[in-house]
């Protein structure tokens, strides 16, 4: 029997409605969540992403403070803008749209570390990574929260389940492990962190009750690598040529047609976790506003 398809667009829309309600209630207390994005230059991909974030802010009731800096901006100008946003009480979240232009790429890590940990909505700052790992209140990267929300809102429990994550990277794998390993409601899983280089990887993935994959290799997870009834969360993104239509399309890391016959549930690519990312950034911004207001 084919798997339940986890609809990221639907879940995203649900969450946005809830966030609108949160924003309204905050407004009654005189608080408006504020999100500041720093965009350097005119890279088309970056401009598109920032546009999506702006639209989401408008939809939900978050004030957006987009900081557009020219391509040739100096390091000190970039840092003084970050400092200014750090100090602005109307700003609850700050993100830097990556990548930065070539002449600034060597200070990307420094720039991210310069964002106040209290406004680091992307959750990249070492202080937030550490606090989240230790089970303390902290920002967590949007993809990790998205994976978690998809699981919970689809009615799946993580407690005592074997969660297998490939790879154990800083962007997806470790942040998700950070959430799901905690001795908390909707977590408390038995977590296995694998690498692409893990010998005999299939022996680990076959044990998974919940499999999270983000290796960016098409058809990496085949049907023989999973057990019956697995829940597969696919965050892979691969641009391939469709064998029939010869057109280019996006697929995940999972051999979807084969695996869906074995899995209990599967997140498709596209239409799974991807559509949730901007929404979870908005959720982190609203959370930040609530936290600075002392509501949570």
């Amino acid at each position, binding site marked *: 029997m084919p798997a339940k398809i986890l609809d990221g667009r639907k879940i995203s829309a649900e969450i946005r409605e809830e966030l609108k309600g949160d924003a309204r209630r905050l407004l009654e207390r005189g608080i408006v969540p504020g999100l500041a994005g720093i965009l350097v230059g005119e890279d088309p991909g970056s401009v598109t992403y920032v546009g999506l974030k702006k639209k989401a802010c408008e939809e939900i009731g978050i004030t957006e403070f987009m900081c557009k800096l020219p391509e040739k901006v100096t390091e000190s100008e970039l840092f003084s803008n970050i400092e200014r946003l750090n100090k602005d009480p109307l700003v609850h979240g700050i993100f830097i749209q990556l990548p930065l232009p070539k002449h600034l790429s060597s200070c990307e890590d420094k720039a991210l570390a310069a964002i106040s940990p209290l406004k680091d909505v992307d959750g990249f*700052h*070492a*202080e*937030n*990574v*550490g*606090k989240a*790992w*230790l*089970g*303390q209140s*902290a920002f967590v990267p949007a993809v990790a929260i998205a994976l978690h929300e998809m699981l919970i809102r689809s009615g799946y429990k993580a407690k*005592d389940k*074997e969660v297998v994550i490939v790879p*154990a990277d*800083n962007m997806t794998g*470790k942040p998700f*492990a*950070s959430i799901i*390993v905690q*001795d908390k409601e909707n977590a*408390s899983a*038995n*977590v*296995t*962190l*694998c*690498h692409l*280089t*893990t*010998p005999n990887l299939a022996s*680990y993935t076959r*044990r998974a009750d919940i499999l999270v994959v983000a290796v960016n290799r098409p058809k990496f997870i085949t049907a023989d690598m999973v057990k019956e009834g697995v829940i597969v969360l696919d965050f892979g993104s691969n641009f391939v040529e469709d064998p029939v239509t010869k057109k280019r399309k996006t697929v995940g890391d999972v051999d979807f047609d084969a695996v869906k016959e074995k899995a209990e549930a599967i997140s498709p690519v596209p239409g799974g976790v991807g559509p949730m990312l901007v929404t979870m950034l908005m959720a982190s911004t609203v959370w930040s506003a609530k936290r600075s207001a002392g509501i949570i």
Partner: protein
Amino acid sequence: MTAEIIDGRKIAAEIQAELKQRIQRLATKGISPKLVTILVGEDPASLSYLRGIGRICGEVGVLTETAKLPANIVQSDLLIKIDELNKDTKVHGILLFLPLPKQLNTLEAESAISPLKDVDGTNPISAGKMLLGEETFFPSTPFGVQELLVRSGHSPEGKHVVIVGRSNIVGKPLIGILVQKQKGANATVTVCHTGTKNIAEITQQADILIAAMGKAKAITADMVRPGTIVIDVGVNFIPDPVTGKNKQVGDVDFEAVKEKAAAITPVPGGTGAVTSVMLMVNTVRAAEALTR
């Protein structure tokens, strides 16, 4: 066939000998590694730990001082003291004894220690850097486990490590250390805990099994596949059935498991012995960072 007994004391002695050489090299550059410990109040366990640190600093050749603060100190004064030590160029490592008296905010105090001097790795920034694979200080106990594995010839690279216990002090940092794509790490890591329903099924998968749950003799022979490397981080005090006196045992049922394991650490004399010297390793590293 009985397991190889991994001698933690021997490994600790090796590390100590190497440290003495490093300290001598620092002396030629006019640097004397110095660890300052902060003791608030008179908690007996902290006092005992303090004595242990004093002893090992003396053995290795690391200077140490204790900032003794009154039990009723206010948070702002504690933070001022930490700030003073952060700025003191002669101080290379800062260790805050826990628990702190109830009126103090432990998280805030730990976060105030400069990551460059956080030799116990308690600042969340240190924990974050560790998880991200950036250079930082590892907390003594998990750092010691890694050293013990590597130096006893049982490097975790490419192996399946199963950690039982997910505490902030041992289990979680250990995951962070062993999962890095670096020498002495690069393992596939599974973490479970004492509440895990099918725990024996999971522990039997391990090439290297690390017990860090704080539950005496909870790892029994049926939970271990023949040929596993067993590392016991547990420290439990139970009455000896013969003498009635309290004795130290680990989380592993040593007598039974040693008949199945390929190698095993005893308690005492295993990981505990190495833990004590890792704080010295971090302090010396902090001092060496000044020479770069």
